[in-house]
């Protein structure tokens, strides 16, 4: 894969999308993990912009720094150097308390393994981030029910995650991510653990959410169907963004997709 330098310029100074508002802006982000004497460079100067209301897919092989990048734009960890702005706030400047505030309200995270809290009902899982945000139990409950109904889980409010199918669990995880009306919904391989049909439903759901709630969706994925329906695709390799393209400009018959 070759690096397209014109596209890189686009990342820093958007021309075509100049009128749009940036929700996430990462500038020359480096992340180094130290284990003993070993240094691992997970990110080596990643730069990217994510605009409000877009549906972005991020592609990258295992070990490319994709997880680390996700952690950065989800305010889950700070960069070693470089800037990460979430809704125009530099997360490197925030103390743990403020980071918690940001994570709680600005970002909705859908983990690959869903990571629902097994001892809680679906509704309690969804109201938990609202509790963290300081919302009173009653309004939180009402909003939780509303979100779960929106995601077609109105009948499963009081079920435990273990009683649900994989697709339903993921919907609960999405509902939980949407609980505090975040700017960005981050989804880590949302279709990886789902069968074809459920995966397709999940893609439709993301589009529905984007349309109805105006939420920005960022998904790490290798799923061709998902890539093809996104607004934009970023490629990450060796800790850098190496390509940025619209699906219409991408040859999906290329070997990298199969």
């Amino acid at each position, binding site marked *: 894969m070759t690096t397209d330098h014109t596209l890189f310029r686009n990342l820093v100074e*958007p021309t075509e999308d*100049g*009128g*749009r*508002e*940036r929700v996430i*802006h990462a500038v020359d982000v480096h992340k180094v993990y130290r284990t003993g004497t070993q240094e691992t460079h997970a990110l080596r100067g990643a730069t990217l912009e994510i605009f409000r209301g877009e549906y972005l897919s991020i592609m*990258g092989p*295992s*070990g490319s720094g*994709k*997880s680390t990048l*996700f*952690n950065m734009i*989800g305010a*889950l*960890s700070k960069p070693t150097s470089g*800037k990460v*702005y979430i*809704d*125009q*706030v*530099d997360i490197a*400047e*925030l103390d*743990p*308390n*403020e980071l*918690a*505030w*940001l*994570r*709680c*309200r600005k970002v909705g*995270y859908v*983990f*690959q*393994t869903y*990571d*629902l*809290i*097994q*001892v*809680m009902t679906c509704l*309690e899982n969804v109201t*938990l*981030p609202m*509790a*963290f*945000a*300081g919302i009173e139990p009653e309004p939180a409950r009402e909003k939780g029910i509303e979100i779960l109904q929106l995601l077609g889980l109105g009948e499963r409010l009081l079920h435990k995650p273990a009683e649900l199918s994989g697709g339903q669990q993921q919907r609960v995880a999405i509902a*939980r991510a949407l609980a*505090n009306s975040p700017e960005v919904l981050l989804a*880590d*391989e949302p279709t990886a653990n789902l069968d074809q049909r459920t995966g397709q439903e999940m893609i439709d759901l993301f589009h529905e959410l984007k349309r109805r709630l105006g939420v920005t969706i960022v998904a*790490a994925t290798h799923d061709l169907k998902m890539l093809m329906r996104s607004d934009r695709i970023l490629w990450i390799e060796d800790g850098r963004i190496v390509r940025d393209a619209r699906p219409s400009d991408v040859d999906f018959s290329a070997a990298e997709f199969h």
Partner: protein
Amino acid sequence: MSTMTEPTRNAIPAQPKLPLGVAVAIVRQGIRIRLGRSLVTLLGVTLGIAFLMTTLTAQVLRRGVADEEALREVANRRYAVLLSETGPLLGKNLSLVASGPLDDGERRLLARLSDERVRELRLRPGTVLSGEVVSPRAVQKTLDDWTRGSTAVLVLGNAPMPAATELLGGASKQVVASSRAASVAPTDGLTVVGLNRPPSAEEQALARHEAERERFRTAWIVAVSLLVTVIGIANSMLMSVTERFRDIGTMRCLGALSGFVRTLFLVEAAFMGVAGGVLGAVGGMLFALGTYLLPYGGTLLLAAVGQGAGALVLMLFGSVVAGVVLSLLAALYPAAAAARMVPADALRSTV
């Protein structure tokens, strides 16, 4: 609008601190759902505290029954001294003259003798056995024959020592046992046994040595029980915390403050500490009471409990407090470790 110069920092308010009630509700729910697991943790705390409480209660009870122990010791010694002169008393006759109040040691000796199935306890006229010592083998005799054919004559209480001829009762020799042996003039044929023989220097040294060893043993048992308690509780709490690292990470990703995570675990530890402490303290005390009930009987035990009531109540409270404090201490490290966890560590999935 897209801005070319990013503001370095917007006004980001701090995440609100949640009221304790939220943590309590989450913990209560967690305990209810993971009931089996919670019970195992609870059992760890309960057993630790019960062990501690059993040891402590035993100390109090032992003090309470110490007088009784001493009495038994005296009675045993008197009995042994008597037997050393008479040989086994099974089926033999004994004579008794007594008046005035008997001391505890004398009463014990009589009770012991009737247990030994002496054939007859022949009473000198005027000797009336008071209510405490009712021997079914007691037989009232006349002045002429009350010592005849007896293996030994007991002179108890403040009864005056009968004349030598009366004691011999026609025989050529007789064993006379009295708590006031010194007042008997040595006469041919009379073997006088002093029931009040003070313990010899050797016996006293042995007793001191035994008491010393007992103190050491007690200190050792209390120390070990404390250690067992601490380790048991620490282990239970560590287990229950580590198995939930994943949930903690998830909560942190959802915006939970590290302080809240710490609170969660400390609240749970306090729950376990209170419940385990109460169960363990009460259970441990009952167990100790049970083990003392058998050899000492209810009346004596009640007296011992009454005597040490203050100490026991203090120990009950102390054990509950110990349960809570130890649980909290044991949870402190894992709770802090959980709170320190970087939220990103929850994302173990490899993308």
